[in-house]
């Protein structure tokens, strides 16, 4: 059992390190946010979670060109993921543009 664990760790240690440090980083980045920005931040983070689309791209690129199930489902996955990515960033930008407009009002 211990051997398996040690083996797993030595095989995957880069991923384990990455996992731990990214979790801490994620906590630290968000810990101080004014509530004004909660919605845009959630929306922006949501767009980043569309990164799952990379998996669909890799999958289609590696599939045989007559494997229509993989290609079809993969293309559908890309369409869904891309909606998340483009829509997410665009909607966040729209929200934040309003804050920008408001800030210029303040200086006037």
């Amino acid at each position: 059992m211990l051997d398996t664990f040690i083996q797993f760790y030595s095989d995957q240690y880069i991923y384990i390190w990455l996992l731990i440090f990214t979790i801490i980083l994620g906590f630290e980045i968000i810990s101080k946010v004014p509530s004004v920005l909660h919605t845009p931040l959630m929306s922006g983070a949501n767009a980043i979670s569309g990164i799952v689309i990379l998996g669909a791209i890799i999958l289609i690129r590696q599939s045989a060109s007559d494997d229509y199930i993989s290609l079809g489902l993969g293309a559908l996955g890309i369409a869904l993921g891309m909606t998340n990515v483009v829509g997410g960033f665009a909607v966040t930008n729209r929200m934040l543009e309003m804050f920008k407009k408001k800030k210029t009002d303040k200086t006037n």
Partner: protein
Amino acid sequence: MHITEFTIVNLLYLVAALAFIIGLRRLSSPDTARKGNLLAAFGMGLAIIVTLFSPIFDAQNTMIATENNYLWIAGGLVVGSLFGWRAAMKIAMTAMPQMVSVFNGLGGACAVLLGIIEVIKSYNGDQAMAVAQWVIVLFAILVGAVSFSGSMLAFAKLDGRVDDRKVTFKGHGTVNNILLVLVVVTGVLWIVMLPEYRVVFAIVFIVLSLIYGYSFVAPIGGADMPVVISLLNSFTGLTAAAAGLIYGSQIMLLGGILVGASGTILTILMCEAMNRSLLNVIIGQFGGGGAAAGGKDGEQVAKEITISDAAILLFYSQSVVFVPGYGLAVAQAQKDCKELADQLEKNGVDVKYAIHPVAGRMPGHMNVLLAEADVPYPKLIDEQTANDAMADTDVVVVVGANDVVNPAALDDPSSPIYGMPVIEAWKAKNVIVMKRSMSAGYAGIQNQLFFHERNKMLFGDAKDSMQKLIQEVKTL
């Protein structure tokens, strides 16, 4: 030679990862937020382009021959971009929470599809998977499916297509726990079963995961809705991270975990704003618990105020504080509210907007709406600042808010919102509550503020009432 290409690809992914991290960092500060979002979008664009054209490497960093199938990829990218762009541009600011929920669900659906394809491939004998890999695939499917069906129900609830009370029942929490156990058992059976039975368990597992997502969100309602969207958002991050492990992609792992961790923190921050624990929110059933609290409504009568009386009261005040809530969003009354404030300011009235952290259906929802109506940033104050100045405030106008101004949060331990910080409107010299009817708030509990001696009700649609008030004030 291959190592060189590997290094270039890897460095480009590193740039994308940095763009995500710095972008998120900048998104959390008002001055840099817009650039932060663009930077994160740049990181995503770079990651997609690199993934499209880079050579693909196996575990030993040697290149794998690929057939690419670019036509299929391009089709998906174009369709998704058009849909996403159109939806983002057309959606009204008031419907933003629903939109984010839908986008989030689509990300989850993408992960589920990936999981399904991996499963099909392994059954066709194209690839053998170790137990560890199976666990990751199942995790991606489970969390992705929960995120998808949960987000879709959250969308339907926020959009008013589904009534909170119709999708939940007594003991729903127990049923959910049983469902979760069933999902896990099916997952384990799927892995240990002989290949010929695996298809059945795979289908059952996916269906159960989808049902669990729906059932997970069903009992959650009221003021807890923002929390659940944030939680589902971090779920999508986790499923993206799991997919990153399947495809050996560090950038997917990093992006996914970053969203998973930051989403979790955001969720906890929101729970803290309501003085509730995350567990409490999840097993919630917000509406049901509060029914008993409204026992004494019958004896009490709320006083009404006419438009002209309200206009006079506002016009000759020193200080007015608006407390906006979801009703403002529903009535699309933010611009009229701003116009009324402008009219009052012409007469030297000091107008402020008190924003409760969970007002509306998402944190910051009200800030976005008021920003859309060009309300200057310094006029927005938080609930603490508003409460400190409350005794010196002449009139508090509650526009479509309810639970965030409910005194039961302070003095009624039996109330489901007991302990939540609220805007203490009743401490002001006068209170006007603009509301459609005497019905209970989204949390389903009665509000004693309506019967307070210093409170008067102004019934009607918020936009309509605002416009009448503007007309009335102009004649003064």
